[in-house]
Protein backbone atom coordinates (compact mmCIF):
# COMPACT_ATOMS: atom_id res chain seq x y z
CA UNK A 1 0.00 0.00 0.00
CA UNK A 2 1.42 3.39 -1.01
CA UNK A 3 2.11 5.96 1.63
CA UNK A 4 -0.39 8.58 0.56
CA UNK A 5 -3.36 6.30 0.50
CA UNK A 6 -2.88 5.93 4.24
CA UNK A 7 -3.30 9.62 5.00
CA UNK A 8 -6.58 10.39 6.64
CA UNK A 9 -7.13 13.17 4.12
CA UNK A 10 -7.36 10.75 1.25
CA UNK A 11 -11.06 10.13 1.48
CA UNK A 12 -11.51 8.71 -1.98
CA UNK A 13 -12.49 5.11 -1.24
CA UNK A 14 -10.47 3.45 -3.95
CA UNK A 15 -6.73 3.10 -3.84
CA UNK A 16 -6.47 4.27 -7.40
CA UNK A 17 -7.11 7.94 -6.69
CA UNK A 18 -5.98 10.45 -4.08
CA UNK A 19 -7.70 13.70 -3.32
CA UNK A 20 -5.48 16.80 -3.26
CA UNK A 21 -5.60 18.49 0.11
CA UNK A 22 -5.37 21.89 -1.46
CA UNK A 23 -7.36 21.97 -4.69
CA UNK A 24 -9.43 18.85 -3.84
CA UNK A 25 -8.83 17.42 -7.27
CA UNK A 26 -8.75 13.67 -7.50
CA UNK A 27 -5.36 12.53 -8.77
CA UNK A 28 -4.65 9.16 -10.26
CA UNK A 29 -2.11 7.58 -7.94
CA UNK A 30 0.23 6.61 -10.74
CA UNK A 31 0.32 10.24 -11.86
CA UNK A 32 1.02 11.37 -8.32
CA UNK A 33 3.94 9.02 -8.10
CA UNK A 34 5.30 10.24 -11.41
CA UNK A 35 5.02 13.85 -10.28
CA UNK A 36 7.00 13.10 -7.09
CA UNK A 37 3.78 13.45 -5.12
CA UNK A 38 3.12 16.97 -6.22
CA UNK A 39 -0.40 17.80 -7.34
CA UNK A 40 -0.21 18.25 -11.13
CA UNK A 41 -3.02 20.79 -10.95
CA UNK A 42 -2.18 23.13 -8.07
CA UNK A 43 1.40 22.22 -7.15
CA UNK A 44 0.54 21.10 -3.64
CA UNK A 45 3.46 19.13 -2.23
CA UNK A 46 2.24 15.96 -0.52
CA UNK A 47 4.32 14.68 2.35
CA UNK A 48 6.86 12.19 1.11
CA UNK A 49 7.89 8.89 2.67
CA UNK A 50 11.55 8.41 3.55
CA UNK A 51 11.97 5.79 0.86
CA UNK A 52 10.37 7.99 -1.77
CA UNK A 53 12.59 10.90 -0.72
CA UNK A 54 15.73 8.82 -0.89
CA UNK A 55 14.51 7.35 -4.13
CA UNK A 56 14.11 10.75 -5.76
CA UNK A 57 17.46 12.13 -4.54
CA UNK A 58 19.95 9.31 -4.28
CA UNK A 59 21.47 7.40 -7.17
CA UNK A 60 20.17 3.89 -7.44
CA UNK A 61 22.41 1.39 -5.74
CA UNK A 62 24.49 4.04 -3.97
CA UNK A 63 22.49 4.23 -0.75
CA UNK A 64 23.96 2.79 2.45
CA UNK A 65 21.97 3.35 5.58
CA UNK A 66 24.01 3.82 8.75
CA UNK A 67 23.11 3.51 12.43
CA UNK A 68 19.73 2.03 11.58
CA UNK A 69 19.87 -0.12 14.69
CA UNK A 70 19.77 2.68 17.27
CA UNK A 71 16.65 2.62 19.44
CA UNK A 72 15.37 4.67 22.31
CA UNK A 73 15.87 3.40 25.86
CA UNK A 74 13.03 5.41 27.44
CA UNK A 75 15.34 7.26 29.83
CA UNK A 76 12.51 8.92 31.78
CA UNK A 77 10.27 5.85 31.91
CA UNK A 78 7.80 8.36 30.59
CA UNK A 79 4.10 7.74 30.83
CA UNK A 80 1.21 9.95 29.79
CA UNK A 81 -2.11 8.31 28.83
CA UNK A 82 0.01 5.58 27.35
CA UNK A 83 3.65 4.88 28.06
CA UNK A 84 6.41 6.10 25.81
CA UNK A 85 7.49 2.51 25.12
CA UNK A 86 4.03 1.66 23.89
CA UNK A 87 3.92 4.78 21.76
CA UNK A 88 7.26 3.87 20.25
CA UNK A 89 6.12 0.35 19.45
CA UNK A 90 3.01 1.68 17.82
CA UNK A 91 5.10 4.13 15.80
CA UNK A 92 7.35 1.30 14.68
CA UNK A 93 4.35 -0.68 13.52
CA UNK A 94 2.74 2.24 11.79
CA UNK A 95 5.83 3.61 10.08
CA UNK A 96 7.75 0.39 9.50
CA UNK A 97 10.77 2.32 10.76
CA UNK A 98 12.73 2.19 14.02
CA UNK A 99 13.12 5.90 14.50
CA UNK A 100 12.19 9.36 13.24
CA UNK A 101 15.22 9.80 11.04
CA UNK A 102 16.98 7.64 8.51
CA UNK A 103 20.63 8.43 7.89
CA UNK A 104 23.09 7.11 5.42
CA UNK A 105 25.62 7.65 2.70
CA UNK A 106 24.71 7.98 -0.92
CA UNK A 107 25.44 9.75 -4.14
CA UNK A 108 23.38 12.57 -5.56
CA UNK A 109 23.85 12.35 -9.30
CA UNK A 110 27.35 11.09 -8.73
CA UNK A 111 28.19 13.44 -5.87
CA UNK A 112 28.93 11.63 -2.60
CA UNK A 113 26.98 12.97 0.37
CA UNK A 114 25.96 12.15 3.92
CA UNK A 115 22.19 12.29 4.06
CA UNK A 116 19.53 12.35 6.74
CA UNK A 117 15.80 12.19 6.06
CA UNK A 118 13.22 12.76 8.76
CA UNK A 119 10.25 10.45 9.00
CA UNK A 120 7.12 12.30 10.05
CA UNK A 121 5.21 9.04 10.25
CA UNK A 122 7.36 8.07 13.23
CA UNK A 123 6.01 10.10 16.16
CA UNK A 124 5.73 13.27 14.08
CA UNK A 125 9.41 13.20 13.21
CA UNK A 126 10.23 14.25 16.75
CA UNK A 127 13.83 14.51 17.89
CA UNK A 128 14.85 12.46 20.89
CA UNK A 129 18.13 10.85 21.88
CA UNK A 130 18.26 8.53 18.89
CA UNK A 131 17.58 11.21 16.31
CA UNK A 132 20.22 13.42 17.93
CA UNK A 133 22.76 10.63 18.06
CA UNK A 134 22.12 9.59 14.48
CA UNK A 135 22.56 13.14 13.24
CA UNK A 136 25.83 13.57 15.13
CA UNK A 137 27.13 10.26 13.83
CA UNK A 138 26.14 11.29 10.32
CA UNK A 139 28.12 14.50 10.70
CA UNK A 140 31.08 12.62 12.18
CA UNK A 141 31.01 10.27 9.24
CA UNK A 142 30.78 13.20 6.82
CA UNK A 143 33.85 14.75 8.40
CA UNK A 144 35.75 11.46 8.24
CA UNK A 145 34.95 11.00 4.59
CA UNK A 146 34.92 14.67 3.56
CA UNK A 147 31.32 14.50 2.45
CA UNK A 148 28.83 17.34 2.40
CA UNK A 149 25.74 16.86 4.56
CA UNK A 150 22.15 17.08 3.43
CA UNK A 151 19.28 16.85 5.89
CA UNK A 152 15.65 16.84 4.79
CA UNK A 153 13.71 17.91 7.87
CA UNK A 154 10.11 17.11 8.64
CA UNK A 155 9.46 17.28 12.34
CA UNK A 156 7.16 18.56 15.03
CA UNK A 157 10.16 19.35 17.20
CA UNK A 158 11.73 17.86 20.30
CA UNK A 159 10.27 14.60 21.63
CA UNK A 160 8.53 15.42 24.90
CA UNK A 161 8.70 11.85 26.11
CA UNK A 162 12.43 12.20 26.59
CA UNK A 163 12.08 15.44 28.50
CA UNK A 164 15.11 17.65 28.89
CA UNK A 165 17.27 15.06 27.13
CA UNK A 166 15.47 15.81 23.91
CA UNK A 167 16.06 19.52 24.53
CA UNK A 168 19.75 18.75 24.82
CA UNK A 169 19.70 17.20 21.36
CA UNK A 170 19.38 20.75 20.05
CA UNK A 171 22.79 21.49 21.51
CA UNK A 172 24.27 18.15 20.59
CA UNK A 173 23.27 18.38 16.93
CA UNK A 174 24.05 22.07 16.51
CA UNK A 175 27.55 21.71 17.86
CA UNK A 176 28.15 18.81 15.49
CA UNK A 177 27.36 21.13 12.60
CA UNK A 178 29.67 23.68 14.14
CA UNK A 179 32.46 21.11 13.66
CA UNK A 180 31.35 20.41 10.11
CA UNK A 181 31.55 24.13 9.50
CA UNK A 182 35.04 24.27 11.01
CA UNK A 183 36.29 21.88 8.36
CA UNK A 184 34.38 23.82 5.72
CA UNK A 185 32.19 21.04 4.50
CA UNK A 186 28.84 22.32 3.30
CA UNK A 187 25.54 21.62 5.01
CA UNK A 188 22.44 21.83 2.88
CA UNK A 189 19.24 21.98 4.86
CA UNK A 190 15.90 21.24 3.22
CA UNK A 191 12.80 22.06 5.23
CA UNK A 192 9.60 20.28 4.34
CA UNK A 193 6.07 20.44 5.68
CA UNK A 194 6.08 20.71 8.67
CA UNK A 195 9.32 21.66 10.39
CA UNK A 196 8.82 23.27 13.77
CA UNK A 197 10.06 23.49 17.34
CA UNK A 198 13.41 22.16 18.45
CA UNK A 199 14.40 20.95 15.00
CA UNK A 200 13.83 24.35 13.40
CA UNK A 201 15.53 26.05 16.36
CA UNK A 202 18.67 24.00 16.06
CA UNK A 203 20.67 22.39 13.26
CA UNK A 204 18.07 22.71 10.52
CA UNK A 205 18.39 26.52 10.48
CA UNK A 206 22.16 26.28 10.37
CA UNK A 207 22.56 25.21 6.78
CA UNK A 208 25.00 27.06 4.56
CA UNK A 209 21.94 27.16 2.39
CA UNK A 210 18.52 26.69 3.92
CA UNK A 211 15.80 25.88 1.43
CA UNK A 212 12.18 24.87 1.72
CA UNK A 213 9.62 23.10 -0.38
CA UNK A 214 6.73 25.36 -1.44
CA UNK A 215 3.96 25.87 1.09
CA UNK A 216 5.71 24.11 3.96
CA UNK A 217 4.85 25.10 7.53
CA UNK A 218 8.09 26.22 9.15
CA UNK A 219 8.45 27.91 12.51
CA UNK A 220 9.54 27.71 16.06
CA UNK A 221 6.24 27.94 17.88
CA UNK A 222 3.37 26.04 16.33
CA UNK A 223 0.49 28.09 14.86
CA UNK A 224 -1.96 26.92 17.54
CA UNK A 225 0.33 28.00 20.36
CA UNK A 226 0.75 31.40 18.74
CA UNK A 227 -2.99 31.78 18.24
CA UNK A 228 -3.55 30.95 21.91
CA UNK A 229 -0.94 33.52 22.89
CA UNK A 230 -2.11 36.39 20.75
CA UNK A 231 -5.79 35.39 20.87
CA UNK A 232 -6.16 35.97 17.16
CA UNK A 233 -6.34 33.84 14.06
CA UNK A 234 -3.10 33.84 12.12
CA UNK A 235 -3.19 35.32 8.64
CA UNK A 236 -3.24 33.00 5.65
CA UNK A 237 0.26 31.93 4.71
CA UNK A 238 1.85 32.78 8.04
CA UNK A 239 4.86 30.54 8.73
CA UNK A 240 4.68 29.09 5.26
CA UNK A 241 7.79 28.83 3.08
CA UNK A 242 6.84 31.90 1.05
CA UNK A 243 6.51 33.90 4.27
CA UNK A 244 9.92 32.74 5.46
CA UNK A 245 11.47 33.76 2.18
CA UNK A 246 9.94 37.21 2.46
CA UNK A 247 11.09 37.58 6.05
CA UNK A 248 14.67 36.75 5.13
CA UNK A 249 14.81 33.55 7.15
CA UNK A 250 15.37 31.04 4.37
CA UNK A 251 17.43 31.28 1.22
CA UNK A 252 15.14 29.82 -1.36
CA UNK A 253 12.05 27.87 -2.16
CA UNK A 254 12.69 24.87 -4.33
CA UNK A 255 9.98 22.86 -6.02
CA UNK A 256 10.35 19.15 -5.52
CA UNK A 257 10.87 18.63 -9.23
CA UNK A 258 13.85 21.01 -9.10
CA UNK A 259 15.30 19.79 -5.83
CA UNK A 260 17.81 17.27 -7.08
CA UNK A 261 19.20 19.57 -9.76
CA UNK A 262 19.40 22.44 -7.27
CA UNK A 263 21.25 20.30 -4.75
CA UNK A 264 23.68 19.30 -7.47
CA UNK A 265 24.33 22.91 -8.38
CA UNK A 266 24.87 23.78 -4.74
CA UNK A 267 27.21 20.87 -4.16
CA UNK A 268 29.19 21.80 -7.24
CA UNK A 269 29.44 25.33 -5.98
CA UNK A 270 30.62 24.43 -2.50
CA UNK A 271 32.85 21.47 -3.11
CA UNK A 272 36.43 22.29 -3.94
CA UNK A 273 38.33 21.07 -6.92
CA UNK A 274 35.50 19.29 -8.66
CA UNK A 275 35.71 19.84 -12.34
CA UNK A 276 32.03 19.80 -13.12
CA UNK A 277 30.07 21.18 -15.97
CA UNK A 278 27.29 23.64 -15.40
CA UNK A 279 23.94 21.93 -15.47
CA UNK A 280 21.88 25.03 -15.82
CA UNK A 281 19.94 23.66 -18.73
CA UNK A 282 18.11 21.27 -16.45
CA UNK A 283 16.33 23.70 -14.19
CA UNK A 284 14.49 26.97 -14.56
CA UNK A 285 15.83 30.26 -13.28
CA UNK A 286 15.36 30.54 -9.49
CA UNK A 287 11.74 29.59 -9.61
CA UNK A 288 9.49 31.04 -6.95
CA UNK A 289 12.38 33.14 -5.78
CA UNK A 290 10.21 36.17 -5.42
CA UNK A 291 6.93 34.50 -4.70
CA UNK A 292 7.06 35.77 -1.15
CA UNK A 293 7.23 39.36 -2.23
CA UNK A 294 3.53 39.42 -2.95
CA UNK A 295 2.78 38.44 0.61
CA UNK A 296 1.57 41.26 2.77
CA UNK A 297 3.34 41.31 6.12
Amino acid sequence: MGWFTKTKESIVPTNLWTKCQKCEDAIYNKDLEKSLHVCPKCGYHFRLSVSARIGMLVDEGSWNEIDGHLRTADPLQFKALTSYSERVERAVDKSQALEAITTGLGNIDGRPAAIGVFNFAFMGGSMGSVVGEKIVRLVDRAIEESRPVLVVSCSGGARMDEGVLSLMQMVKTSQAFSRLSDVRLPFLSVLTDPTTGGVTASFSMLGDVVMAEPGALIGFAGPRVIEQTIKETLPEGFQRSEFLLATGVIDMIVRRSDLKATLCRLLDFFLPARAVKAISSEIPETADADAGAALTL
Partner: protein
Amino acid sequence: MKELPFEHHLLELEKKIDELKSLSKAHFIDLSQEIQTLTAKLEKSKAETYSNLTAWQTAQLARHPRRPLTLDYIAALTEDFLELHGGRQWPDDHSIVGGLARFQGEPVVVVGHQKGRDTKENIHRNFGMPHPEGYRKALRLMKLAEKFDRPILSFIDTPGAYPGMEAEERGQAEAIARNILEMSRIRVPIVVIVIGEGGSGGAVAIGAGDAVLMLEHAIYSVISPEGCASILWKDASKAEEAARALKLTARDLLDLQVIDEMITEPLGGAHRDPKTTSGDVSDAIGRHLERLRAMTSDELLRLRYDKYRRMGVYTEKVNGE
Protein backbone atom coordinates in the same frame (compact mmCIF):
# COMPACT_ATOMS: atom_id res chain seq x y z
CA MET B 1 3.67 37.03 50.54
CA LYS B 2 1.67 35.10 48.00
CA GLU B 3 0.69 31.68 49.29
CA LEU B 4 1.32 28.47 47.41
CA PRO B 5 -1.25 25.71 48.11
CA PHE B 6 1.21 23.32 49.70
CA GLU B 7 2.51 26.03 51.99
CA HIS B 8 -0.92 26.63 53.55
CA HIS B 9 -0.41 24.63 56.75
CA LEU B 10 3.00 26.18 57.30
CA LEU B 11 1.66 29.67 56.95
CA GLU B 12 -1.17 28.77 59.33
CA LEU B 13 1.34 27.60 61.89
CA GLU B 14 3.41 30.71 61.45
CA LYS B 15 0.32 32.80 61.97
CA LYS B 16 -0.58 30.93 65.14
CA ILE B 17 2.91 31.37 66.56
CA ASP B 18 2.75 35.09 65.84
CA GLU B 19 -0.62 35.30 67.57
CA LEU B 20 0.70 33.56 70.66
CA LYS B 21 3.66 35.90 70.71
CA SER B 22 1.44 39.00 70.53
CA LEU B 23 -0.88 37.58 73.16
CA SER B 24 2.03 36.81 75.47
CA LYS B 25 3.41 40.28 75.00
CA ALA B 26 0.14 42.13 75.37
CA HIS B 27 -1.05 40.31 78.49
CA PHE B 28 2.26 39.43 80.07
CA ILE B 29 1.37 35.74 79.97
CA ASP B 30 4.14 33.22 79.69
CA LEU B 31 3.38 31.19 76.58
CA SER B 32 6.97 30.28 75.84
CA GLN B 33 6.28 26.58 76.28
CA GLU B 34 3.44 26.63 73.75
CA ILE B 35 5.40 28.81 71.36
CA GLN B 36 8.40 26.52 71.56
CA THR B 37 6.28 23.46 70.84
CA LEU B 38 4.61 25.06 67.87
CA THR B 39 7.92 26.37 66.53
CA ALA B 40 9.42 22.91 66.69
CA LYS B 41 6.36 21.57 64.94
CA LEU B 42 6.70 24.26 62.27
CA GLU B 43 10.34 23.47 61.65
CA LYS B 44 9.61 19.78 61.40
CA SER B 45 6.68 20.39 59.12
CA LYS B 46 8.75 22.74 56.95
CA ALA B 47 11.53 20.23 56.64
CA GLU B 48 9.03 17.56 55.68
CA THR B 49 7.25 19.73 53.16
CA TYR B 50 10.26 21.19 51.39
CA SER B 51 12.33 18.08 51.29
CA ASN B 52 9.48 16.14 49.75
CA LEU B 53 8.14 18.58 47.19
CA THR B 54 6.46 17.08 44.19
CA ALA B 55 7.67 18.16 40.77
CA TRP B 56 4.58 20.31 40.39
CA GLN B 57 5.19 21.99 43.75
CA THR B 58 8.75 22.63 42.67
CA ALA B 59 7.47 24.21 39.46
CA GLN B 60 5.33 26.52 41.57
CA LEU B 61 8.27 27.48 43.74
CA ALA B 62 10.38 28.02 40.63
CA ARG B 63 7.78 30.55 39.49
CA HIS B 64 7.18 32.06 42.90
CA PRO B 65 6.59 35.78 42.50
CA ARG B 66 9.02 36.58 45.30
CA ARG B 67 11.78 34.36 43.99
CA PRO B 68 15.04 36.24 43.32
CA LEU B 69 15.43 37.20 39.65
CA THR B 70 18.47 37.62 37.45
CA LEU B 71 19.05 41.27 38.30
CA ASP B 72 18.77 40.36 42.00
CA TYR B 73 21.56 37.84 41.60
CA ILE B 74 23.63 40.26 39.59
CA ALA B 75 23.23 42.85 42.33
CA ALA B 76 24.07 40.36 45.06
CA LEU B 77 26.89 38.51 43.35
CA THR B 78 28.71 41.16 41.39
CA GLU B 79 30.07 44.65 41.65
CA ASP B 80 30.28 47.45 39.11
CA PHE B 81 27.54 46.10 36.88
CA LEU B 82 27.18 48.11 33.69
CA GLU B 83 24.19 47.06 31.66
CA LEU B 84 24.74 47.09 27.89
CA HIS B 85 21.60 47.41 25.79
CA GLY B 86 23.02 47.37 22.32
CA GLY B 87 22.27 44.08 20.66
CA ARG B 88 22.68 46.08 17.43
CA GLN B 89 19.38 44.55 16.43
CA TRP B 90 16.05 46.28 16.57
CA PRO B 91 14.62 46.55 19.17
CA ASP B 92 16.29 46.21 22.54
CA ASP B 93 14.75 43.14 24.17
CA HIS B 94 14.09 43.77 27.86
CA SER B 95 13.45 40.12 28.62
CA ILE B 96 17.17 39.51 28.40
CA VAL B 97 19.61 41.68 30.31
CA GLY B 98 23.35 41.66 30.22
CA GLY B 99 26.47 43.63 30.76
CA LEU B 100 29.85 43.91 32.33
CA ALA B 101 30.52 43.25 35.99
CA ARG B 102 33.02 41.99 38.53
CA PHE B 103 32.48 38.65 40.17
CA GLN B 104 34.68 37.96 43.17
CA GLY B 105 36.83 40.83 41.97
CA GLU B 106 37.32 39.51 38.45
CA PRO B 107 35.71 40.99 35.33
CA VAL B 108 32.93 38.85 33.88
CA VAL B 109 30.18 39.28 31.34
CA VAL B 110 26.73 38.45 32.65
CA VAL B 111 23.59 37.69 30.67
CA GLY B 112 20.25 36.38 31.77
CA HIS B 113 16.52 36.29 31.32
CA GLN B 114 14.73 38.92 33.33
CA LYS B 115 11.18 38.51 34.56
CA GLY B 116 9.22 41.24 36.27
CA ARG B 117 7.99 41.47 39.84
CA ASP B 118 4.60 42.96 39.07
CA THR B 119 2.33 43.35 36.08
CA LYS B 120 3.93 46.54 34.87
CA GLU B 121 7.43 45.14 35.12
CA ASN B 122 6.30 41.91 33.54
CA ILE B 123 4.89 43.71 30.56
CA HIS B 124 8.15 45.60 30.20
CA ARG B 125 10.09 42.33 30.50
CA ASN B 126 7.59 40.36 28.41
CA PHE B 127 7.37 37.92 31.33
CA GLY B 128 10.92 36.90 30.66
CA MET B 129 10.08 35.56 27.21
CA PRO B 130 12.62 36.71 24.63
CA HIS B 131 12.21 37.70 21.02
CA PRO B 132 15.04 36.96 18.58
CA GLU B 133 16.80 40.22 19.44
CA GLY B 134 17.22 39.10 23.03
CA TYR B 135 19.29 36.11 21.99
CA ARG B 136 21.25 38.19 19.56
CA LYS B 137 22.01 40.74 22.27
CA ALA B 138 23.18 37.94 24.56
CA LEU B 139 25.34 36.59 21.76
CA ARG B 140 26.92 39.95 21.13
CA LEU B 141 27.79 40.20 24.81
CA MET B 142 29.21 36.70 24.84
CA LYS B 143 31.39 37.55 21.87
CA LEU B 144 32.54 40.66 23.67
CA ALA B 145 33.48 38.45 26.60
CA GLU B 146 35.40 36.17 24.28
CA LYS B 147 37.23 39.06 22.68
CA PHE B 148 38.50 40.32 26.01
CA ASP B 149 38.95 36.88 27.56
CA ARG B 150 36.35 37.32 30.28
CA PRO B 151 34.26 34.41 31.52
CA ILE B 152 30.49 34.43 31.07
CA LEU B 153 27.79 33.93 33.66
CA SER B 154 24.39 33.12 32.21
CA PHE B 155 21.26 33.13 34.37
CA ILE B 156 18.32 31.09 33.12
CA ASP B 157 14.81 32.10 34.11
CA THR B 158 12.25 32.02 31.34
CA PRO B 159 8.94 30.35 30.60
CA GLY B 160 10.32 29.99 27.07
CA ALA B 161 10.84 31.85 23.83
CA TYR B 162 7.91 34.16 23.12
CA PRO B 163 5.39 32.41 20.86
CA GLY B 164 4.22 35.50 19.03
CA MET B 165 3.92 36.54 15.42
CA GLU B 166 6.71 39.08 15.38
CA ALA B 167 9.13 36.68 17.02
CA GLU B 168 8.45 34.17 14.25
CA GLU B 169 8.66 36.83 11.58
CA ARG B 170 12.03 37.99 12.79
CA GLY B 171 13.51 34.51 12.92
CA GLN B 172 13.10 33.13 16.45
CA ALA B 173 14.20 29.66 15.41
CA GLU B 174 17.29 30.85 13.61
CA ALA B 175 18.27 33.11 16.50
CA ILE B 176 18.10 30.24 18.98
CA ALA B 177 19.98 27.90 16.67
CA ARG B 178 22.64 30.50 15.97
CA ASN B 179 23.22 31.08 19.67
CA ILE B 180 23.59 27.39 20.39
CA LEU B 181 26.07 27.00 17.55
CA GLU B 182 28.07 30.08 18.48
CA MET B 183 28.15 29.12 22.15
CA SER B 184 29.85 25.89 21.18
CA ARG B 185 32.71 28.04 19.84
CA ILE B 186 33.08 30.74 22.48
CA ARG B 187 36.62 30.39 23.79
CA VAL B 188 35.99 31.48 27.38
CA PRO B 189 34.33 29.65 30.26
CA ILE B 190 30.54 29.80 30.37
CA VAL B 191 28.85 29.09 33.68
CA VAL B 192 25.09 28.70 33.47
CA ILE B 193 22.86 28.98 36.51
CA VAL B 194 19.24 27.88 36.25
CA ILE B 195 17.66 30.07 38.92
CA GLY B 196 13.95 29.66 38.19
CA GLU B 197 12.31 28.37 35.05
CA GLY B 198 14.41 26.77 32.36
CA GLY B 199 11.87 26.89 29.57
CA SER B 200 12.82 24.90 26.51
CA GLY B 201 14.49 26.56 23.51
CA GLY B 202 14.27 29.94 25.17
CA ALA B 203 16.47 28.63 27.97
CA VAL B 204 18.93 26.58 25.98
CA ALA B 205 19.60 29.54 23.67
CA ILE B 206 21.76 31.03 26.42
CA GLY B 207 22.24 27.82 28.36
CA ALA B 208 24.73 25.69 26.47
CA GLY B 209 27.67 26.30 28.80
CA ASP B 210 30.58 24.46 30.34
CA ALA B 211 29.06 24.13 33.76
CA VAL B 212 25.32 24.12 34.31
CA LEU B 213 24.31 24.74 37.91
CA MET B 214 20.73 24.61 39.06
CA LEU B 215 18.98 25.80 42.17
CA GLU B 216 17.22 23.11 44.13
CA HIS B 217 13.74 24.40 43.38
CA ALA B 218 14.32 25.49 39.81
CA ILE B 219 12.95 23.52 36.88
CA TYR B 220 14.36 22.87 33.41
CA SER B 221 12.25 21.25 30.77
CA VAL B 222 11.62 20.74 27.09
CA ILE B 223 8.05 21.96 27.57
CA SER B 224 6.01 23.45 30.39
CA PRO B 225 3.98 20.95 32.43
CA GLU B 226 0.83 22.71 31.25
CA GLY B 227 1.85 22.53 27.62
CA CYS B 228 2.80 18.89 27.91
CA ALA B 229 -0.49 18.03 29.65
CA SER B 230 -2.58 19.70 26.99
CA ILE B 231 -0.75 17.86 24.23
CA LEU B 232 -0.29 14.38 25.69
CA TRP B 233 -3.26 14.24 28.06
CA LYS B 234 -5.38 16.62 25.98
CA ASP B 235 -6.09 18.23 29.35
CA ALA B 236 -4.14 21.16 30.76
CA SER B 237 -5.28 20.30 34.28
CA LYS B 238 -3.04 17.26 34.18
CA ALA B 239 -0.04 19.57 34.63
CA GLU B 240 0.80 17.96 37.93
CA GLU B 241 1.12 14.54 36.31
CA ALA B 242 3.01 16.01 33.39
CA ALA B 243 5.45 17.75 35.72
CA ARG B 244 6.24 14.45 37.36
CA ALA B 245 6.57 12.60 34.07
CA LEU B 246 8.85 15.24 32.52
CA LYS B 247 11.58 14.83 35.15
CA LEU B 248 12.21 18.54 35.34
CA THR B 249 13.58 19.08 38.85
CA ALA B 250 17.20 19.67 39.73
CA ARG B 251 17.47 16.23 41.28
CA ASP B 252 16.07 14.65 38.10
CA LEU B 253 18.49 16.57 35.93
CA LEU B 254 21.37 15.60 38.15
CA ASP B 255 20.39 11.96 37.70
CA LEU B 256 20.13 12.45 33.95
CA GLN B 257 23.57 14.11 34.00
CA VAL B 258 22.22 17.18 32.27
CA ILE B 259 23.36 19.52 35.04
CA ASP B 260 26.67 19.56 36.86
CA GLU B 261 25.57 20.63 40.28
CA MET B 262 22.45 21.28 42.29
CA ILE B 263 22.66 24.27 44.62
CA THR B 264 20.65 23.57 47.76
CA GLU B 265 18.21 26.31 48.75
CA PRO B 266 17.45 27.51 52.26
CA LEU B 267 14.47 25.70 53.78
CA GLY B 268 11.34 27.13 52.21
CA GLY B 269 13.03 28.30 49.05
CA ALA B 270 15.40 30.99 47.80
CA HIS B 271 12.90 33.79 48.39
CA ARG B 272 12.80 33.07 52.14
CA ASP B 273 16.51 33.77 52.43
CA PRO B 274 17.92 35.42 49.32
CA LYS B 275 21.14 36.31 51.09
CA THR B 276 22.08 32.75 51.95
CA THR B 277 20.98 31.66 48.50
CA SER B 278 23.12 34.16 46.68
CA GLY B 279 26.05 33.31 48.92
CA ASP B 280 25.71 29.66 47.98
CA VAL B 281 25.29 30.52 44.32
CA SER B 282 28.39 32.66 44.49
CA ASP B 283 30.40 29.85 46.07
CA ALA B 284 29.25 27.38 43.45
CA ILE B 285 30.01 29.70 40.53
CA GLY B 286 33.39 30.51 42.06
CA ARG B 287 34.33 26.87 42.32
CA HIS B 288 33.37 26.09 38.75
CA LEU B 289 35.00 29.21 37.37
CA GLU B 290 38.23 28.32 39.09
CA ARG B 291 38.16 24.87 37.58
CA LEU B 292 37.31 26.17 34.10
CA ARG B 293 39.81 29.00 34.11
CA ALA B 294 42.61 26.55 34.72
CA MET B 295 42.00 25.07 31.28
CA THR B 296 43.30 26.21 27.93
CA SER B 297 40.55 27.30 25.60
CA ASP B 298 41.15 24.26 23.42
CA GLU B 299 40.59 21.97 26.40
CA LEU B 300 37.55 23.99 27.34
CA LEU B 301 35.99 23.65 23.90
CA ARG B 302 36.77 19.95 23.73
CA LEU B 303 35.19 19.27 27.10
CA ARG B 304 32.19 21.41 26.26
CA TYR B 305 31.70 19.45 23.07
CA ASP B 306 32.07 16.12 24.87
CA LYS B 307 29.62 17.18 27.55
CA TYR B 308 26.74 17.61 25.13
CA ARG B 309 27.96 14.87 22.80
CA ARG B 310 27.29 12.38 25.60
CA MET B 311 23.75 13.53 26.33
CA GLY B 312 21.01 11.16 25.33
CA VAL B 313 20.09 7.60 26.18
CA TYR B 314 19.64 4.90 23.56
CA THR B 315 20.44 1.28 22.85
CA GLU B 316 22.27 -0.28 19.97
CA LYS B 317 20.93 -3.60 18.84
CA VAL B 318 23.66 -5.14 16.78
CA ASN B 319 21.17 -6.95 14.61
CA GLY B 320 18.54 -4.34 13.95
CA GLU B 321 15.12 -5.65 12.99
